[in-house]
């Protein structure tokens, strides 16, 4: 009996080792441990064994079974792993094949710049506000200290609807509208479309965008204006941007200034981009004129503040090195998809 068992066991182990795949292995399992398997047959023949020998034989059979099962299991794990390895090998793909991509649209470059400007100023506590594009002469000019027949009205080449209503030439009227409805402290920026009677060419458009900014409080100073705008351009154009404030004149601010930044292309050495100047004019600004405050219902003896106006397209063209303003309004897909 013992010999027979040993023989079965050896034969099973040999056949297990010979099995080259999972199905062959399964055949071996059935051949020995299945209902009609050899080892099962031994168990079935227990009735022929003498009763006193039965426990011993039984134990021997179980041990043999255990050993076979253990080896079977080990072999199964091994063969499964081999099979998986083969499968993985077969499934290798060329990862450099093109991506399956849905075509995604792009924001207009003006919008990208505006988003940036809005992010910077909302971070400094400014509210983004809007005003009408078709505006009253009063808000566009008079309330900004540009009375009737002021030469500045001519300079701006205004589109008129009638004597009283026009297409706004600047976003500055929003300053007045905000001051009329809101008590200081005020911190606002007002982006929007403006219009001037300029013929279309590479550097002019009869319709473009400005971003107006204004801060009114009890102790807002010219030095705050300098600090705020310096912070703005450094966030916009980089920490090493140098700034220069030059005296200028706007009817609605006093003192007024123009701000130059060091050319971000050449860093100030002078290049084609900055016309050899090393500096790029970026915006106009100043302390809100006391007359403007007063006309808007704010007491200039109690409050003061600053305002500034940036040409959005000017920054867009500079930032993205676009050399023709007309591209911004043609909406050629090959242009837009670059942003």
């Amino acid at each position: 009996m013992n010999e027979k068992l040993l023989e079965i066991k050896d034969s099973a182990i040999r056949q297990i080792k010979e099995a080259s795949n999972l199905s062959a292995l399964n055949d071996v399992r059935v051949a020995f441990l299945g209902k009609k398997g050899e080892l099962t047959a031994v168990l079935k023949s227990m009735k022929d064994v003498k009763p006193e020998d039965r426990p011993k034989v039984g134990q021997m059979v179980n041990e043999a079974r255990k050993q076979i099962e253990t080896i079977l299991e080990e072999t199964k794990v091994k063969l499964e792993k081999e099979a998986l390895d083969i499968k993985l090998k077969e499934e290798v793909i060329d990862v450099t094949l093109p991506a399956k991509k849905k075509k995604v649209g792009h924001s207009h470059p003006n919008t990208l710049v505006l988003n940036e400007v809005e992010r910077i100023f909302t971070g400094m506590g400014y509210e983004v506000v809007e005003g009408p594009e078709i505006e009253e002469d009063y808000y566009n000019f008079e309330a900004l200290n540009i009375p009737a027949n002021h030469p500045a009205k001519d300079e701006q080449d205004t589109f008129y609807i009638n004597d009283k209503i026009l297409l706004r030439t600047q976003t500055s009227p929003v300053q007045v509208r905000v001051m009329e409805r809101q008590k200081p402290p005020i911190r606002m920026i007002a982006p929007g479309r403006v219009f001037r009677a300029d013929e279309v060419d590479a550097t002019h458009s009869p319709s473009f965008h400005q971003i107006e900014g204004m801060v009114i409080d009890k102790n807002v100073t010219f030095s705050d204006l300098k600090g705020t705008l310096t912070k703005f351009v450094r966030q916009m154009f980089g920490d090493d941007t140098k700034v220069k404030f030059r005296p200028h004149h706007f009817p609605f601010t006093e003192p007024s200034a123009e701000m130059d930044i060091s050319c971000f292309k050449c860093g100030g050495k002078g290049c084609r981009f900055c016309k050899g100047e090393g500096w790029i004019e970026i915006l106009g600004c100043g302390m809100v004129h006391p007359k403007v405050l007063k006309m808007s219902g704010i007491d200039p003896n109690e409050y003061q503040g600053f305002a500034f106006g940036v040409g959005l397209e000017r920054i867009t063209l500079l930032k993205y090195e676009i050399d023709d303003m007309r591209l911004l309004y043609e909406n050629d897909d090959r242009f837009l998809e670059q942003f």
Partner: protein
Amino acid sequence: MNTSLNWIKDLVPGLECTDQEYMDAMTLSGTKVEQGVRLDKDLDKIVIGKVEKVEQHPDADKLVICQVNIGQDELIQIVTGAPNVFEGAKVPVVLDGGRVAGGHDGKLVEGGVKIKKGKLRGVESYGMMCSIDELGSTTEMFPDAAEDGLYILPDDAVVGESAVSYLGLDDLIVEYEVTSNRVDCFSILGIAREAAATFDKKFVPPVVKEVGNSENVNDFIKVRVENNDLCKRYTARVVKNVKFAPSPKWMQNRLRAQGIRPINNLVDITNYVMEEFGQPMHAYDLSTISGNEIVVNTAKDGDEFVTLDGQTRKLDENILMINDGEKPVGIAGIMGGENSMITENVKDVLFEAACFDGTNIRLSSKKLGMRTDASSKFEKGLDPNLALVAMNRACQLIEELGVGEVVGGAIDIYPVKREGVKIPFEPEKYNKLLGTDIDKDTMISYFKKIDLVYNAQTNEIEVPSWRQDLLCDADIAEEVIRFYGYDKVPTTLPNGQSTTGKISFKHYIEKMVKNTVEHCGFSQGMTYSFESPKVFDKLLLDKDDESRKAIKIANPLGEDYSIMRTLSVNGMMTSLSTNFGRRNQNVRLYELGNVYLPKQLPITELPDEKMKLTLGMYGEGDFFDMKGFIEEVFESVGMRDKVEYSPESKLNFLHPGRQANVIYNGEVIGYIGEVHPTVASNYAIKGRVYLAVLDMESITKNASFDYKYKQIVNFPASTRDLSMVVPKDVLVGDIEKIFDQRGGKYLESYKLFDIYEGEQIKEGFKSVAYSLVFRGKEKNLEENDITKAMKKILNGLEGLGIELRA
């Protein structure tokens, strides 16, 4: 405004600086320099030479060999082809290694032309004698230079000295952007005063003396000003026995540097004074002035007048005229008349220096379409105090230059004298505005530089009359930092009460919408707000279509930009057309922009500005893709109710059978459709184009992010398929309405899975198949629950004439 730097330096003794230092410093103190151009930038090694000997070139008929004295020990030999060379001629000579500005054909060469010694037809030549063109100027500016050939210099030219400085070309011409508030800086004296203040030097203006003989001007002329508002001051003087001659070289050089052509002594003096003081003057032939009388008054409507350029001008009652006893002789401040102009036969001259109202001159000059040197000065609003001093300066020069005999006395009609204003001195206020800590004495020292007088008794600043821009504390504060230095002002951040940075909900929704449509493949376009009225025809709008009621611009750039858009469609179609024309495939664009809807026409109040989201596409995608995009937009802003589409939009520019109003919560908030093929062809687009226009105000109103969590249900779902035969005119939307109304609480969702028209379906019907999903929220559904719901639905469908398919 341009100035010669040499002239400025003459008025500011001790001003020593490089060109660049001058320009930078002036810009930083508020007189912005646009550019500086050196007249001699391309001139090098050019001296005055004298031709001592001229001999024929042995091998060239047209060349001569000259021996030229350039003030050195030896003569130099120069070969020239110039026809006008002669022995004894003084000429500009460029030496070996020098440069000239261009060829004798008048063409300038960037960087100049280098001159080297060499051989001309075998004969050595050690330099070149120059024409005026080669020196970078013109015979226009140098009337005494030969039209063709060398510039033969006057006798006073000193051999061996620099020809460049002799001709006044060693100068920097500085161009400034003078702002409209600084009328005083439209003059050499104004700029020089600023330069002196900027460099902390003394400003030395010319000393003006009133000259004149013992006669009395009042015996020659009487002046009456009828309109004192428009003529604030009128001064007149008389010069007798005028003798014309060229003006002296120093004056010619200065005028040339200012870009003014020298003409004769009389004209040059008026131009000189206009540059120097910024005060225009006019000269009349006294013999043409009838009645020895000048009357300043406005014209009559419809009057005509011939100006000295020979043009007939139509006048009106707002145009101020200078008249004599009988007739008009000049348009005040703009141009004199042909009838009184100075000719070479003039004997006695009447000089006028006046101050006219700037606005009136500006409007008249615009109306007449004539902007002259004089009018462009007057329209800025001159200081009336200038008139007499400028007049006297001119007469002084007349006498100095021996142009004529100045008659004693001046007529001066100046009823209301302009006085300078007085502003209280408030140093703390200036510092508070500026964020600086500048002491009082420093401020006063700045004032002194620009002739603002500080009166310690009254503690007031007395502003000179030419500074019409200084009126309040802020103006004075600007004068303080101009000289303190904008760059020295500290940089700080506002520290007051804190404020909240924010964007409006509307703006936030716009950003969300942009994100969504960009993810659907649409790129953002921007188009103009104004367009041509012809677009309405292009879009096939009916003659009485509401959208034709557009706001007109009174002064448009042209018809193409003359009305404010009432529809956003044209801009989109134009952009798509541009792309199509450039063979860009599968283009999807969107725009967020306003349309302008008048409340009445012509408008008397501001119109409604409505922001529209406009989607446009051609190439891949169809009507139902477009519907999907719209619904994605809605979903992204929390508009989760059912969107309905009704084919009643009736827009002419869309395909009559492929368009719909977009309805949300019962309100039409936009439209969608395929572009009418005729319209597409009007925009030169072949193939199908799809549009959707949504009203952003409605979207903002309906947008909400107020979501509430609903329990996720794990009970199993049961599906029922419904195959129907549906009359053709019944919309799928109508069927879905039945599902919504009658499906009951267990109907979770439904989905169209087949729609078919054709052979197996009877005429006038279509086959529509839906799969309906039922699920209980609190329990497992029983067969009965579903059957009840299905029965209700089927009853409803029957009402629409729908049958179940066998």
